[in-house]
């Protein structure tokens, strides 16, 4: 029973991390129509920046503030210089360009930090374990578990209640119409990409105490977040939340009960859902 509960917590905290990353991916897709292949690499960059800041300043919270911002600035530059020229073209061009960015970022990370693995300790406040009903659980995982829904609600409120949120939703529904009523679509797109990559960087920074930092972490997470956003429904908020939780739980329970199939399970799930509900479980509703 306690093992079952343990896996539940593990799955949910992994799901929250996936949610944080996927939500950035899905916002960028929903508004810009770009499926960002480099999203995982930006997540990885967030983790490396966090690692670097912690070893420079010895302060996790400061690192958590700086590193996503740096990633987001890079994201803004990428959008303005690389993506803006190709919005009018076929989607495969955008896929390929962001794939080019992925190649550059992944190898840049290898050049700068080498191929070895690094770890970051959780901050003192969240270090240690709690004892619940006869088993122990790391505090940091609980922190992530609580943070996920908080960010979800915050984003929902931003998109529903603020003027900027409404502008973004308008532009995502009809780019030309939005420009016609005086919204600066170019600036808005850069802003959205900035924000989406900020979320990726944040996910990376928050993941550092949970997962080892290495040059292949982006390659893995991008496929996982693709799965999350596609099974939930591309561009959908609640979809990303649902998809992230499903994938997190499948990973946790799969490792326990079907160890020989754990790697294949997410792809089987993806295929099953795409074949029965081609637009994902929860159709788009930004």
């Amino acid at each position: 029973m306690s093992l079952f509960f343990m896996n539940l917590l593990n799955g949910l905290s992994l799901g929250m991390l996936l949610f944080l990353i996927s939500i950035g991916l899905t916002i960028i897709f929903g508004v810009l129509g770009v499926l960002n292949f480099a999203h995982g690499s930006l997540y990885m960059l967030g983790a490396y920046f966090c690692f670097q800041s912690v070893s420079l300043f010895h302060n996790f919270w400061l690192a958590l503030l700086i590193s996503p911002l740096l990633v987001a600035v890079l994201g803004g530059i990428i959008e303005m210089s690389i993506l803006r020229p190709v919005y009018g073209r076929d989607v495969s061009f955008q896929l390929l360009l962001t794939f080019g960015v992925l190649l550059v970022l992944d190898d840049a990370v290898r050049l700068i930090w080498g191929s070895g693995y690094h770890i970051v300790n959780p901050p003192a406040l969240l270090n240690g374990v709690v004892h619940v009903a006869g088993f122990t659980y790391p505090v940091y995982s609980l922190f992530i578990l609580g943070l996920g829904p908080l960010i979800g609600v915050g984003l929902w409120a931003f998109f529903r209640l603020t003027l900027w949120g409404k502008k973004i939703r308008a532009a995502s529904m009809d780019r030309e119409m939005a420009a016609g009523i005086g919204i600066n679509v170019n600036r808005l797109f850069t802003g959205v990409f900035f924000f989406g990559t900020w979320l990726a960087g944040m996910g990376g920074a928050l993941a550092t105490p949970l997962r080892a930092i290495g040059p292949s972490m982006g390659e893995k997470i991008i496929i996982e977040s693709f799965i999350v956003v596609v099974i939930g429904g591309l561009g959908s908020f609640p979809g990303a939340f649902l998809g992230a939780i499903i994938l997190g739980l499948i990973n946790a329970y799969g490792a326990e009960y079907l160890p020989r199939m754990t790697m294949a399970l997410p792809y089987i799930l993806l295929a099953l859902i795409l074949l029965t509900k081609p637009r994902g479980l929860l159709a788009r509703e930004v």
Partner: protein
Amino acid sequence: MTRSDSSLKPLFGWAAGLAALILLPFVINTYIILLTTEVMIMGIFALSFNLLFGYTGLLSFGHAAFFGMGGYVTAYLLSHACPSLTLAFLTGVAGASLTAIVVGYLSVKLDEIYFAILTLGFGMMFFSLAHQWRSVTGGSDGLTGLVVPRLGWGAFSVDISSPWHYYYLVVAAFLLTVWILRRITQSNFGLILVSIRENKERAAFTGINIRAYRLASFSIAGFFAGVAGGLFAVFDRMASPSMLHWTTSAQPVLMTVLGGAHTFFGPVVGSILFFFIEHIITKFTDIWMIYLGAILIPLVIFFPEGVLGTLLGLKKRKHG
């Protein structure tokens, strides 16, 4: 006179290409022979992908599934004392084609990004299978220790473990693939594929069964990807899970875009460029993807038709 001139012209091109491929081993060293062999194998892989992408308009991110399937089946038979290279190779290609028919049947009803993601998912399913089904696939080590039998029969057989002999085998396979795919793309069937790419709805209104044509295109592409995979496994003397990984699926995509998706030989030009760039850069550093990315990005932005596509476009404009 002018008419016979223009109909002879492409023939000269073909003859020159053929002669160059046959004479190449006499002027260059073993290393370049190996490199050229690999370029042609990946050229077959990229050409097969482009039937799907450039002609049918379907961006598959799981094409490595068929490349890997061809490679794994061939490697499995050769590492289990299969006496005939031809048999092992043909079984590999059959395995790849069957896989493509099944995956294609399920995938071709989706479009654009959904199609790309679904094929990526199927590809990664096979990657996971190769990784975790240790008893058959050898797990993360892959299948090694291939015994490559002589090709042919008795006195009429050759030992293809020599790079030169294998080079000529791959030249033959490459030319055959080019010829068949060229015939396919220039046939009515090929034109229908292009019409589906250009406008799916309009094509459907003229009575074309979109799904059937897409499936046919997907299966043919899978067949030739299997050919490339089988050749690659024999070339490398092994099959490893990386053959099935999505980054391998990305390779023909890159090559095709590099060369030009809307020209027949674009993927081949892309394959040459890809290996040329890799060859030059890895002389100086192991970390070469960063340069590939740095070349790819401006190329995609400024040369949307690829290197060959842009050159042909310039030529066309010049001549009228």
